[in-house]
């Protein structure tokens, strides 16, 4: 394969990372918590869409809709039951460990319901592959992934900048107390953030499984961690940062696999993250907050 092919594969994988990272970064920016269960929502999204399309025989559009609705509800439920009671617990570690508990819970529920064996996934994408100059082939999955990633990023940016709810999110992320005094319903805003993040995770799950058609209860864990790395890479809390971080991470991973060593690809990805953070401790687009005495 040529360099260009690798590059396109990298952008495709990176777009999936970017979609997951967008959800991660929004939740982190507003709730200030690392949602370790985010990756497992992706996995649940994969299973739900598989059930809807293969078992129930629904059309792709309808199954995607159902998946997004189910995952959104799941995200809001997780936030309400497991995270909200701990919001003023005093230690950020408490909610982190609870998130880990939720992650185990989702993995084991999937394990019980669907079994440990990998399920083969039928691609939801029916866009034909594109061949340029007879050599370069771009699969339909790649086209859909990249296009939907860009659309999501633009819509999300507009939503945050222009809509009232988006402004409320910004306010809550800056200062919860002051936002509340201005009449913003903090709980509702955080729920909305989880809803959007989980809805994005559902889309990411469908796109990930369409491109890499094998689904196990642990499918979401590694992409979840990678997306988190991508979010940190681009500056956590920043939406364009998550996009850039995701794309870069995917490209580095695929190129590292192709040209250096397939086993060391993860080490290379993490190595680049460390170098970036050492040069710019808040990520590529992160804001540097000066500590006041």
């Amino acid at each position: 394969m040529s360099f260009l092919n690798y590059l396109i594969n990298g952008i495709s994988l990176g777009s999936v990372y970017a979609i997951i990272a967008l959800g991660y970064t929004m939740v982190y920016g507003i709730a200030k918590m690392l949602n370790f269960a985010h990756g497992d929502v992706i996995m649940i999204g994969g299973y739900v869409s598989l059930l809807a399309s293969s078992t129930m025989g629904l059309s792709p559009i309808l199954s995607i809709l159902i998946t997004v609705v189910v995952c959104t509800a799941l995200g809001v439920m997780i936030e309400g039951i497991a995270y909200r009671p701990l919001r003023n617990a005093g230690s950020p570690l408490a909610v982190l460990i609870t998130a880990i508990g939720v992650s185990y819970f989702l993995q084991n529920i999937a394990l019980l319901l669907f079994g440990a064996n990998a399920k083969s996934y039928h691609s939801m994408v029916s866009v034909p592959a594109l061949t340029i100059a007879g050599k370069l082939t771009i699969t339909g999955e790649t086209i859909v992934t990249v296009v939907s990633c860009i659309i999501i990023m633009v819509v999300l940016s507009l939503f945050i900048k222009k809509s009232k709810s988006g402004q409320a999110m910004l306010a809550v992320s800056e200062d919860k107390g002051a936002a509340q005094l201005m009449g913003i319903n903090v709980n509702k805003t955080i729920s909305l953030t989880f809803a959007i993040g989980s809805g994005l995770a559902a889309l990411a799950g469908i796109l990930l499984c369409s491109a890499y058609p094998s689904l196990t209860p642990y499918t979401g864990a590694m992409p979840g961690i990678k997306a988190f790395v991508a979010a940190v890479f681009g500056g956590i809390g920043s939406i364009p940062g998550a996009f850039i971080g995701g794309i870069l991470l995917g490209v580095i991973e695929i190129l590292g696999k192709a040209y250096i060593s397939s086993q060391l690809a993860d080490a290379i990805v993490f190595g680049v993250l460390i170098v970036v953070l050492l040069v710019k401790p808040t990520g590529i687009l992160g804001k540097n907050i000066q500590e006041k005495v």
Partner: protein
Amino acid sequence: MLKKIDKRTKNNFITYAMVIIAFVVVQILLASGSMSSLMKGLLVPLCVYMILAVSLNFTVGILGELSLGHAGFMCVGAFTSAFFSMCMKDVITSNGLRFFLALIIGALFAALFGILIGIPVLRLKGDYLAIVTLAFGEIIKNIVNTLFIGKDSTGFHFSLKDAMSLNMEPGGEVIINGPQGITGTPQDSTFTIGIILMLLTIFIVLNMIYSRDGRAIMAIRDNRIAAESVGINITKYKLMAFSISAGLAGVAGVLYAHNLTTLNASPKNFGYNMSIMILVFVVLGGIGNIRGSVIAAVLLTLLPELLRGLSDYRMLVYSIVLIVMMLFNWAPKAREWRERHLPKNLLKRKQTAKEGK
């Protein structure tokens, strides 16, 4: 003042006594033969987890930095010590001496990695530090998985590709075989050694906490800027705490490696899942509470085994127990509820007991 010191000594004494009593109870159970082979197999891993939990608590509770790469240091300790033991298998025949030397090597290498990783990492703060330690842990695991080292009469051969590219003479021995890891490590770990190392770990950590250095480290945790302004060298003390913690994780790694015949780095034993599991012990046991870490490590390791009767549902139940325990322990509302209801219930019980009389 005297009373305060007494209280602290008493508190420490309870921790040591608890471990020793547990040891004696286990020995009695072993001698009377009333322990299942499953439980016997769990004894050394229990010591490993306890040491890991106490050493991570030193980073998280005392230094106040969240580390998600603790399993990486354990991995370094495990592989360096197992490598040493494999090389010295025929040279040093005394098991005790060989294990002792392996222990020192494992701990030193892990501490060295702690310093090397600590220098860049400790410049970062909070969640950024957490993700970078996670990254380092994964890198260590990843590199160990691609490492091939062999030995023949001309010396050592290294490769990052496969066993063939070591270019060894016939008769040479592959010691670290990439993803297959190290096979044939002498099994020198016993429960007694585990408990001794465990006591040693607690001793080091508790003495460290109450020393001048320990107070400096805690001052940095509580207020970095204030600590710096009274002349505490932040970098030095942070590195000191981080490397001690890493070294102790290395000790756990040595114990782990010499308990198995085959040592390989899989996501299960040295991946971020392991680091997270240790963190769960620390947080559930109480951040900064050494005795709590020990108890939580034991309980949470035994819990899945005790739930074995539930077969497929056990990990599900484990996760629910974890979430409920966290909510009950930490949620402000649950705390309020406990304060309001629990003492009242106790009072009520006393009253009814009195009335019953």
